């Protein structure tokens, strides 16, 4: 102790340094175990779209139909393959262990630090998204090399930029929703169940099982008001040339609104939850 009162660290540069360190820490954590890295980072998330390809194959074969709605068999396979690629970028619902940390009292260490705890979680989001950009790009390139005849290609570079913007912003919204659900651990002991339920609902609303165009009428008009649609279905359709610039702009505005709302909600549940936190034990 130097005697003089130490100045509190602060400012954007300080927060930027913490975020950088948090990202580096998350990378070390992700790479700590080989099997964990393969399951959690490499192959996680691609199983459902791949299964859906076989489901649609079976439907087309058994019904003899050439198309379902505006989607032919090749279109649906392209949709699912691009969906699988982009879904890799979507933050996983089990990507945070915040609920466990709250249950077991491990967030205590952060509460005494001169730190916005959200920076640590943001570190995980940045680490996951940056790594998955690399993995998804590799996955797409490998597909193109192995099966060039059926592997879908984006209609333009602009479409790629628009799709990536929407996916990453949508993934951030989903990440915030996951933060909110994890903070429910301050009140509830069923967070894991909630996360599983939400994963299924968000996956469906995002068009992971079928494109919006094939859904019932009321869903076609309702779902574009929610972020999941703009997180997956719309970006895939932009890549396929089914949606254009005007749709991108609408999606961007919708996602920005959801981001603000979820950010406020996450901050509120965290603050209120902390007042109930006991840190395990008395």
């Amino acid at each position: 102790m130097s005697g003089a009162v130490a100045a509190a660290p602060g400012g954007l540069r300080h927060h930027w340094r913490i975020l950088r360190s948090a990202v580096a820490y998350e990378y070390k954590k992700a790479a700590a175990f080989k099997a964990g890295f393969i399951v959690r980072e490499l192959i996680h998330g691609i199983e459902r779209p791949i299964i859906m390809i076989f489901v649609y194959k079976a439907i087309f074969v058994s019904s003899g139909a050439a198309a379902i709605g505006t989607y032919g068999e090749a279109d649906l396979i392209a949709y699912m393959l691009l969906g699988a690629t982009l879904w890799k970028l979507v933050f996983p619902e089990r990507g945070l262990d915040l609920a466990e940390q709250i249950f077991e009292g491990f967030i205590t260490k952060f509460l005494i630090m001169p730190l916005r705890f959200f920076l640590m979680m943001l570190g995980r989001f940045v680490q996951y998204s940056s790594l998955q950009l690399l993995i998804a790009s590799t996955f797409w390139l490998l597909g193109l090399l192995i099966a060039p005849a059926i592997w879908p290609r984006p209609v333009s570079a602009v479409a790629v930029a628009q799709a990536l913007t929407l996916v990453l912003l949508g993934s951030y919204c989903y990440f915030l929703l996951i933060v909110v659900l994890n903070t429910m651990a301050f009140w509830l002991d069923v967070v894991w169940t909630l996360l599983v339920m939400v994963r299924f609902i968000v996956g469906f609303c995002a068009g992971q099982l079928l494109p919006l165009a094939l859904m019932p009428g009321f869903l076609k008009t309702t779902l574009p008001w929610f972020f999941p649609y703009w997180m997956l279905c719309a970006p895939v359709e932009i890549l396929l040339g089914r949606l254009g610039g005007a749709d991108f702009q609408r999606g961007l505005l919708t996602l920005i609104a959801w981001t603000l709302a979820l950010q406020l909600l996450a901050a509120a549940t965290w603050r209120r939850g902390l007042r109930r936190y006991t840190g395990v034990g008395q």
Partner: protein
Amino acid sequence: MTTTSPLIHCRRLGKTYRTLRRREGVLRLLGGLVKREHVEHAALVDADLDILQGEMVGLIGANGAGKTTLVKILAGIIPKTHGTAEVFGRDCFDLRDAEKTRLSLVMGQRSQLWWDIPPLDSFRLLRAIYDVDHDVFERRVAEHAERLGVADRLEVQLRQLSLGQRMKMEIIGAFLHDPELVFLDEPTIGLDLVSQETIRRFLRDLNRERGVTILLTSHDMADIEQTCERLLILDGGKLLFDGDLPDLQRRLVGKRRVELHLEDELVGEPTDAAEVARKHDGELVEVSPRRLVFLVPTARSQALVRELFDLLAVKDLSVERQPLEDLVREVFRRGQLEDAP
């Protein structure tokens, strides 16, 4: 190295936990889903406390006495229910980054470092959080690791370290940013004697050299006895005692343990010696052929020893203070000292 600046200030501090009442029987259990019943438990009751800069204070109490609750309130982890709790002149639950930079916490039963990576990587993250200069960081890590004897374990994954090594790493992490105030909750729990002693010496040195204020919670009386000048005894959420060890002895009419080693073997029962002990309100508690042990009130111990020297051929003598553990047990038994704070 005690100065007069108060770092911790509490008045009528209280904390009540509200928990769900679990009822027995299936019907009652199902009924509980509709109508919830809660029970309140006072974990801390009207505690008054001031801790000055540079003090080393030991907090003693049985399980559930309220020790950890007090530490958590003071560290700003949980809010108080009523009263005043201030650290650095500010409400504990409303500490800003400026105050948080000046304190630290070690919880013996809850790791503060990151399980999956080596301690050195955790320290680097802490360095960014506390904005510690690179050279200062390197020097402190090396210095603390050397003192605690874990310099060669800094790059081993935390989960692969022994309990003692992990705790030493926790302590290094807690002192990296040179805090003014450190809370340690059971830092030596489950450790071997050598590790315990190393940690105690480290804490004493840091307190003496850098004036760090330390509030140490422990079940191990040796931790408190060997490191702290001041004791707080909590029981049932109430602060039963606040003072130093001699003060505790005085208030409890502490006893001395007098042990005599004799030149010659005893023949028959030492009835004369027992009689002398009774005369001084003491008692003869152990007898062997060449050794006698007496317990006597501190104020009468000199007179007893003089008379025993006249009575017996004494080869060697030792007079010891009553162990802290006995004193604390006595405080719990009495429940409240007459002039306790």
